[in-house]
Each structure stands twice: as structure tokens, then as C-alpha cells.
């Protein structure tokens, strides 16, 4: 009896959203604030001069492409799940996850490229910031990949379908968000170095 009411009451709010999805959005707000803080710090620090100039690793163009394609495949998987096309869902999920891992590997090579250019974590902050941006973003991306893999596994267990989309939707939201975050960081670094 009691729980039934809880459900009914929960469902009646005019602007209500699924609480977990809503919490995910709030979490993304906090991530945005972290990077807003860091990128503002970058600008403030840069304006003070004594700033090492160097070229951004070219790998970033490839990894940006990878993350976009990964998002597209995930979205395709999501649309397929909505239409209960489970085969396409799984294919999309697998590709998205593999590309997610590829992105991480690519980011690692950006570190290698930076070292080759004699830009180290320790040194002029212009380089250190780059390591922090990519590193912290990669850390969030790891959580995204884990989320992808969890949903991937449930998709193989027939737990993702048109009637059961909450975790899939959250996964898609989070992954698109992380992709967009990377594109923001990349554009930011292109414009401000």
C-alpha cells in the first residue's frame, strides 16, 4: 500500500524527472564547474605572461574524431533499442565502447607527443594545464567507459529494450556530455594557446 502511494506521488509532479536521471544532470553540472574553474584559471594565468608556446599534439584531431563517431554509434544503438532492434543495439554498443577505449589510448599518445616536444607536466604552467585538462577529462571518460560496458553487458542480457531505457538513456546522456566536454576543451586549447 505504502509504496504504491510513493510511486503515485512521485509521478504526479508537473516538472518531475526520473530522480536518477536528474541526479546525473546535477553531477554533470559539477563536472562543468570543475572545468569552468580550470579553464578560467588558465586564462587568468595566461594573461600574466611568461607563457610557453607550443603546438598542440596532432593526435587531438584524431581523438576528437573518434569520440564523435563513438557518440554517433551510441546514439544509433539508443535509437535501435527504442525500436527493440536488439542486434543493432549490441553492435552499436560494442563499437561505441571500443571507440571509447581507443579515445583513451589516443589521449595517452598525446602525452607521448607532448613529451617528445619537451613539454612536461612539470615546468611552465602552460604545459601543466594541458596535462591536467586531458588527464582529468580522461579520468571522467574512464567512468563513462565503465558505464558503457555495464550497459553493454545488460544489453546482452536482454535488459535494455524499449520498455527499459533508463540506464541506456543515462548512459547516452553522460557519453554525449563527455564528448562535448572534450570538444570544448580542445576548442578552448586551440583558441587560447
Amino acid at each position, binding site marked *: 500500500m*505504502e*509504496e*504504491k*502511494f*510513493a*510511486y*503515485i*506521488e*512521485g*509521478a*504526479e*509532479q508537473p*516538472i*518531475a*524527472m*526520473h*530522480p*536518477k536521471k*536528474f*541526479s546525473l544532470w*546535477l*553531477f554533470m*553540472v*559539477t*563536472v562543468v*564547474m*570543475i*572545468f*569552468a*574553474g*580550470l579553464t*578560467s*584559471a588558465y586564462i*587568468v*594565468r595566461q594573461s*600574466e605572461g*611568461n*607563457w*610557453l608556446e607550443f603546438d598542440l599534439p596532432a593526435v587531438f584531431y584524431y581523438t576528437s574524431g573518434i569520440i564523435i563517431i563513438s557518440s554517433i554509434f551510441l546514439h544509433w544503438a539508443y535509437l535501435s533499442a527504442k525500436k527493440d532492434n536488439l542486434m543493432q543495439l549490441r553492435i552499436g554498443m560494442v563499437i561505441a565502447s571500443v571507440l571509447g577505449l581507443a579515445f583513451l589510448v589516443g589521449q595517452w599518445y598525446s602525452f607521448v607527443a607532448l613529451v617528445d616536444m619537451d613539454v612536461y*607536466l*612539470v*615546468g*611552465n*604552467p*602552460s604545459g*601543466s*594545464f594541458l596535462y*591536467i585538462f586531458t588527464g*582529468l577529462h580522461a579520468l571522467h571518460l574512464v567512468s563513462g567507459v565503465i558505464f558503457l560496458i555495464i550497459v553493454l553487458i*545488460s544489453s546482452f542480457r536482454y*535488459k535494455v529494450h524499449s*520498455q*527499459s*531505457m*533508463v*540506464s541506456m538513456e543515462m548512459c547516452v546522456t553522460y557519453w554525449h556530455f563527455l564528448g562535448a566536454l572534450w570538444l570544448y576543451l580542445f576548442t578552448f586549447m586551440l583558441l587560447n594557446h
Partner: protein
Amino acid sequence: MATASVASHSAHDHDHDHEHKENFITKYIFTIDHKMIGKQFLVTGIFWALIGGFLSILFRLQLGFPDMDLTFLKPLLGGWIDDGGKLDPNFYLALVTMHGTIMVFFVLTAGLSGTFSNFLIPLQIGARDMASGFMNMLSYWFFFISGVIMFISLFLENGPAGGGWVVYPPLSALEQAIPGSGMGMTLWLIAMTFFIASSLLGGINYISTVINLRTKGMSFSRLPLTIWAFFLTAVIGLLSFPVLFAAALLLVFDRSFGTSFYLSDIYISGEGALPNTGGSPVLYQHLFWFLGHPEVYIVLLPALGITSEVIATNSRKPIFGYKAMIISMLGITILSFVVWAHHMFVSGMNPFLGSIFMFLTLIIAIPSAVKVFNYLTTLWRGNLIFTPGMLFSIGLVSFFISGGLTGIFLGNSAIDIQLHDTYFVVAHFHLVMGSASFFGLMAGVYHWFPKMFGRMMDARLGYVHFWLTFVGVYLVFFPMHYIGIAGFPRRYYSFTTYDFSSAYTDLNMFVSVAAIITFAAQFIFLFNFFYSMYRGRKASLNPWRSTTLEWTTPLHPGHGNWPGEIPAVYRWPYDYSKPGANEDFIPQTVPLSATPESNLPHEQELVKLEKEIIAEEGEVLVANESKES
């Protein structure tokens, strides 16, 4: 079962859990019941308040009685008391730092928001629990871990962090700078990381609960001001704590990995320059105060919300300017993010930028003044009932005025050049933030104790506690204005180094004695709190004759809060002394149609609408139920 139906299922699981297997551990320790979590925050907060207060007594001894023989503290402080019975200067810095950190974050953030947001949000909006009980539990345990780490740091050989609660680099970044910047600082950073995680988990929960789980009829314009305050506090925290995390992250890299975000061209005791180049310590100040200033409102807003509720209830009057209160809180929320650099007027920042921040800072005095005005007009000609909660709320208003006024002084950059980092600032923020929020916390405890523990606290002890604390606070902090105007800097170990400041030895002694008495008075509260928990007079269901929802629950609400259906809400929470009404308060659960004698003309029109909605909802309910089963 499938993850998709989380919505309905998590709600089910909840109730089953508590019905079937509630034991000591799930009930008192790893509980997911918001009421118990609130109490956990409260008790932990009280523990930290005692530690924080005790540390302040230690350094007040040093400041008030510089020649005193402190050997009797040796058993506790060991090597920090030297052979002459003197406090170690480095430990003095550590004491000040820990006092600030503990009070700001552990007591007035976690102890205040954590307690009352958790306890009151579901009860006052009519929800069974928080949006995620599990995250809520994590929030408490992260806070707990954070506390354990901070506590351990107190006992390190080199002492805890000593760079002030703001931990400015380079002082905090270089181990060679002061002993506290070694392991103590590392633990400080780890503890604060856990603390940030805890605050964010809590905040996310508060926000999504307020938005998603309000009961029928509880529109935003019918929310008690407490809920508005907790909600906006959580929003501020959500936006500012991540930036503190960013600041701390860069500091960690500077400390442990040799980067130079905040460090440049540093020479220590005549040795060659450190390798760090290109960093900027002012950068840290920007990042820190971007949290730091909003943080002071994170500390204050919940106290203001509690005060609104307590003052309206005990004046038996509707709160004056309900909408104005909400708008001012919204204004404070927004403005609190654009004034941070008033803490940095003398940091070498561009003076033009300084004047912009000065302008914005002075604007924030407007919503603050609106709130004060509304409290006073609510009190004006009310049928005042001086419960201890009410007294503490009035005390808050007093501190908010006296401390807020000095804020306007400090907000003027020209005056701040003289007053920055003097005891004037200490006086300012201890009145407006420290004491005001502490009084809000106390008001909340006295007021909601009956709901928390089903018993009443002893009012007479409450009065004694109030008067000693109220007078004590003014005796402690008011003289500091003079010391500050005379130019004495804060965080200095000794007042007797300079001739001009030796003149204040007597005043300092006076302050220290007052501080010790005020601290001692808190034990009256402590006794009252724990004694009343078990032996207090049994409370009635609605002891303050209040209108809000929490008083419609049973004396000891179980997990789920209301045994039957959650009551719906038909009116705003401040129908006190409504002309024509039979009683001097009408609970939010009484429909307008039941009170034709007191309805205002526009409410009378709503009655029709209300009846239609009730009829309609009856149908929906039936429909939903058949859909569910």
C-alpha cells in the same frame, strides 16, 4: 528485475527493507532514513563544534595570557608546550587553521546543512525520503571519513595544516615553509576532497528531492522558507565546491608532483631559487574565493531559513514579505558568485577590477537588508512567544545586523586596505557568519528537537544557555573591532611584540575570559540535549502550534514518515492569526474549503478549483492504482 523500472522499484525496495530487516546497523549506522542521517550529521557536528571550540580556547589562552605557564596542558599537547610552559608558535598557527576549517566546513556546513536539509526537506515537502537514500548515506560517510582524516592530522608529529583555513600557497605548497605544510597539509587536502564529495552528494540529493518529490499541492510558492533556503544553499554548493576541488587539485600537483601553478621564483632561507617558475599565487586566491565567498552564504542561508520559520511561528504572524524573502535569497545566491575578489583587494589585483568588485559587493547588502527588515517587521506587534528557539533566532538577527554593517565597511576597498587581515575582519565574520549561523543552528535544534526525539528540551536551561551565549558572543567579538581598527593583524602569535599592541593586553585578557565562559556555557546545552533525549518531557504532536507538514507525522515517524497517504497541501505555510479563523494557525493540510470563515476573497474563488482538483485526483489515484496492480 530490469533497471528500467527503477522508479517504482526503488520505492518498493525501500519500504520492504525497513519493514523486514531493520537491525541496529541498518537503523543507526548505515541507515538510509533521512531523519537518522540528519541526526548523525547533528551529533557529528556537535562533536566537531566541541573540538573546534576547544582549540580556540587554547589559542585564546595564548593571546589573553601570554605569560601564562601552560605546563598543565602538557599531557594533552606534549611537545607543543615547550619547557618554559609556552605554546609553540607553529602550533598556534595550526590551531587557528584547524579551528577555522572545522568551524566553517564541519560544523556550520555539514553540521547545519547536513542536519536540517536532511531532516526537514522530506518532512516539510511531504516526501517519504530523499531522492536517493543510498547517496544520502554515502554523503554522511564521506563526511565521516573526512572527519577521521582531519582528526588524525591533529596528532601528527609536525602538526596539522597551519596555513590558515584558506591554505594560501606558497605557504601551504612548500613543505619547507612551516611544519604544518608537510603531512598535515596532505591530510587536510585528502580530508577536504572527501568533504567536497560529501557536500556534492548531499547537495545533489537535496536539489532533486525538492524538485521531484513534493507532495500534492506543494507548489514552489507554498514551500516553507526553510526549504527555499536549503534548496538555494545546495545550488550554491553544487556550483562552488567543484571549483574548490579544482583549486585543491592544482595545489596537490604543486605539492606532490613539482608543477608550478601557484609557485614562482621562490627563495627559502638564502638558498638558491626553487625550480618552480611561472606560477601565480593570486590564481589560487581567485579559485579559492570563488568557493570561499559562496561558502559563507552556504553557511548562512540555512540559518536564515530556520530563522524565518521559527520567527513566524513564534510571532504568530505570517512572515512579512514571503516573496521578498525568496527574491532576496535568489539575489544572494546569484550575487554571491560575483563578489569573491573583495577578499583580495590588497593582493595586487588591478585596482580597477577592485572597484567593480566593490560595487558588486555593496549591492549584496541590499538583499541582506531586505531580509533583516522582513524579520523585524514580522516580529513587530506579533504575539511573541519567547521559546529558546525564538530567542536564538532573534539573536541571529542581531548578529546579522551588527556583523553585516561592518561588512559594508570592508566592502569599500579604500577602507579595506587599512582593515584587511586585521582583527576587524575577524570581528566581522565571527558575528555575521560564525555567531549568526551558530545561533541559527541552535534555534533549529531547540525548535525541531521534539520532532527529532519526541521529547522537549528544557526551556529554562535553554534560556540560561541563550543569555550566556548571546552576551558572551558580543563580549568576545565586539572588542575585536577596536583592536582591528588600531591595526593589529590577525593570525599573529603574540600581541606583545609591538608597543602599540601591548596597549591591548587587558582587552585581550577580557576577550579570552569571555570566550572561556561562553565556551563553558555550551555544556549547559550539551547536558540539556542528551538529557532531554532520554528524560525530557514527552512532546505533544505539534508543540509550537505550527502550520508545516512535519508536525502532521506521528511523534516518532517511521521510515516513510507518514503511516498512511502523504497529506496534500492546500495553502502556504504562514497562515498564522488569520482574521476570522477559529485558531491562530491553520496547518497547510487544511483545505480552503474547510475554512470559509477565514478565506480571503481570492481564496474563496480557489475553493471551487480546489474541489474540482480533489475530485479529479481521486479518479487519477484510482486509475493509477489499478494500473499498478
